[in-house]
């Protein structure tokens, strides 16, 4: 009997496998409901454990779910637009900012929004999250009627952009401590408010006190579907009406289907590999770094392997932002012959014939740390591994959990470490260029765990932090990028296009380059 049970089990397993394998052929899928006009279902990926906007990066989720709003926001071209602040100005000495708060805004619990409330909310963010101080430091914040006045010690050209960061979502601090924001969600001003939230699934309901027009849906259900294939299938089957970030492997299914609408845009993100160049690491030799970078055929990775869902990488800042992408010169374009020559020059030779180069008894072996919650990261890593093997590198891919990545990056426990980073979450790449490459003297700049240090680069960064003139800032940012390229500071793989796909019975779904605004009041049933 035992024998037959085993055979039966094997057959069933194989059968199940074949069925799932073949089922994909028909593409479309059926949407059963056609969309309930009162309920919106959005398939997302959620990393937040709570909706407390000051905890880690959880504010992003508060904003994406249509819950929280800031004083300012970014439009489709990353220009700063008024939001809860209707206008702002800076004094002649560049030290005093005055934001005029809209006076028709109410929190979802009915409390009117005043400059005092905004002040308390911003101070709360500073008190609860040290990241706030990496954006700006203030001398004083004062409220005068609907005017919010922020005094700073140094001139801070990026102020309106800083306040668009979801860390500075305006919450009703008077609702605390009666309401525990981390358990019940914050009280904000957005079109929807929390009904229930766990990491895997959130339910939002209409904010009846919304200030900016009518809110279309009674309820928004937001399941977090972390696996990109499952998310695609949920959209195909009608389990969700909207899905964000459909992976390269699946996007073709929707492209040829007139039931779905795709909004695909160049994001502000860059996928890069940090290269550890601390003294005892192999990559401290600039020639080896140059060889590594020009041994990678980045055009093929992005155009073929990722089916053009990524733009081939070159510089730190993506071409979607106007910071001289085309005029920057990459000294390390794909050229395997040059890469081999550089390695020879640096003294790395394959003396024992195993295909891996050595120098002074040390193998050319590099530890490449990746995580795989984003589908493209392992793909890049494997492509690099395959390309560089031909040059005599032995790349060991070390897949770790996403939660470990940050710590490993700060401590420098890698040779290469892959990251998918937003370059301009304040509207310009100053912070991005500072965090990852400014000299880290005794932990002064912890995000730079790679050991990269160039005094010329630091000097230009200092200049940038004081500069108000738009054209001069642009030129400084271009210069900074060129220094990084010349130094072979990091390996820039590519720039993701992000997408949001919706069934056509829903309207107004837009993906913004900042990636902050997913569910907005503009999303409504199609007529």
């Amino acid at each position, binding site marked *: 009997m*035992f*024998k037959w049970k*085993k055979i039966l089990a094997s057959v069933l397993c194989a059968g199940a496998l074949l069925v799932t394998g073949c089922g994909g052929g028909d593409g479309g899928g059926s949407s059963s409901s056609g969309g309930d006009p009162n309920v919106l279902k959005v398939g997302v990926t959620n990393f937040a454990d709570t909706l407390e906007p000051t905890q880690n990066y959880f504010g992003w989720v508060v904003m994406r779910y249509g819950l929280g709003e800031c004083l300012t926001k970014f439009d489709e071209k990353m220009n700063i637009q008024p939001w809860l602040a209707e206008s702002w100005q800076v004094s002649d000495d560049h030290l005093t900012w005055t934001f005029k708060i809209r006076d028709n805004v109410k929190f979802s619990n009915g409390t009117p929004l005043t400059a005092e409330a905004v002040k308390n909310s911003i101070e709360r963010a500073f008190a609860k999250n040290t990241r706030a101080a990496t954006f700006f430091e203030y001398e004083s914040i004062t409220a005068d009627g609907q005017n919010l006045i922020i005094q700073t010690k140094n001139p801070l050209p990026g102020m309106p952009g800083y306040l668009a960061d979801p860390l500075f979502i305006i919450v009703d601090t008077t609702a605390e401590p009666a309401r525990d924001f981390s358990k019940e969600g914050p009280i904000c001003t957005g079109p929807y408010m929390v009904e229930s939230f766990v990491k895997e699934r959130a339910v939002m309901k209409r904010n009846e006190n919304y200030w900016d027009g009518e809110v279309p849906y009674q309820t928004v259900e937001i399941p977090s579907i972390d696996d*990109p*294939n499952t998310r695609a*299938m949920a959209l195909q089957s009608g389990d969700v009406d909207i899905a964000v970030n459909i992976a390269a*492997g699946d996007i073709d299914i929707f492209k040829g289907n007139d039931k779905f609408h795709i909004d695909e845009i160049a994001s502000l993100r860059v996928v890069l590999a940090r290269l550890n160049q601390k003294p005892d690491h192999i990559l401290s030799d600039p020639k080896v770094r140059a060889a590594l970078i020009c041994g990678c055929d980045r055009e*093929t990775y992005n155009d*073929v392997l990722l089916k053009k869902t990524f733009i081939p990488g070159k510089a730190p800042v993506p071409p979607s932002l106007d910071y001289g992408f085309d005029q920057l010169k990459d000294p390390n374009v794909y050229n395997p012959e040059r890469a081999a020559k550089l390695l020879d020059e640096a003294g790395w030779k394959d003396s024992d014939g195993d295909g891996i180069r050595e120098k002074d008894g040390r193998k050319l072996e590099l530890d490449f740390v990746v995580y795989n919650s984003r589908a493209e990261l392992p793909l890049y890593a*494997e492509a690099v591994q395959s390309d560089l093997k031909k040059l005599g590198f032995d790349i060991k891919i070390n897949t770790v959990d996403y939660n470990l990545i940050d710590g490993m990056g700060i401590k420098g426990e890698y040779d290469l470490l892959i990251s998918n980073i937003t370059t301009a979450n304040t509207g310009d790449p100053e912070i991005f260029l500072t965090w990852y490459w400014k000299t880290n003297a005794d932990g002064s700049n912890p995000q730079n765990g790679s050991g990269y240090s160039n005094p010329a680069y630091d000097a230009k960064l200092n200049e940038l932090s004081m500069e108000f003139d738009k054209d001069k800032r642009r030129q400084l940012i271009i210069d900074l990028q060129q220094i990084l390229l010349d130094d072979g500071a990091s390996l820039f793989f590519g720039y993701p296009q992000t997408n949001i796909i919706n069934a056509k019975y829903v309207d107004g779904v837009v993906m913004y380059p900042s990636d902050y605004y997913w569910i907005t009041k503009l999303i409504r049933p199609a007529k």
Partner: protein
Amino acid sequence: MIEAFKKNRLFAIYTAAVILILFVAIFAPYLAPQDPFDGNMRNVLQPPSSEHLLGTDKLGRDTLSRIIAGTQVSLFMTICLVILLAIVGSIIGITSGYFGGKVEMILMRFADMMLAFPGVVLAIAIAGILGGSVVNTIIALLAVGWAKYARLVRSLVIKLRNNDFIIAAQVNGTKTINILWRHILPNILPMVVITGAMDIGTMMMEIAGLSFLGFGAQPPTPEWGLMLNEGRQYIQTAPWLMIYPGAAIFIVVATFNLWGDSLRDVLDPRQQ
């Protein structure tokens, strides 16, 4: 042996199939039509064609070549694991069965503890802590699987221990190690071999399972479980990346299961 083949047609057929699989595994580098590691990145996710009989994967590597190379990896891992399980299990089983007393109690309570855990979950935990690699997968499954063998061997040894020929050997002053080696081991070996043979299929599935979850073989190793996982992302657009490695697992596991069963029929006198 020839007798056995004549008597048992099915056993002959299954043995032939097993030999064929072993042949593929051993000569994989010569049988694979293309390099299983190095593909043409300009030629990714191609459907099956005359050039690539089973299509190409996400890095443009030939799927057929990778499946053939995977036979070697998967079979090597499985056979190593089963042999290690048999050795470790036998040593612990013989020790506790023959000597009894406190040694037995400690070892068997430890075995009970291991058996009380859900095996695969524990293996995932161990492999997760050790980090994914071929060797660590084997260690993890070994740590989980030995208890079953130790229990089996122990019960066999207890049955043997009081037989006259053992007592005679003891009375004659034979060294303990010689008793174990000369008298006990040959008597338990057939049972251990049968159990091992029947476990090959199961172990192969568990290894593939761990690799599928990312705790086993790491890229670019052509391991079937890992290939399934890689193909999962393209399940709708390039289903051949899952179908063929899945079929390979199915065929090999089924063959070894059938072979293990018929081997038992042949070796176990009670079944005849």
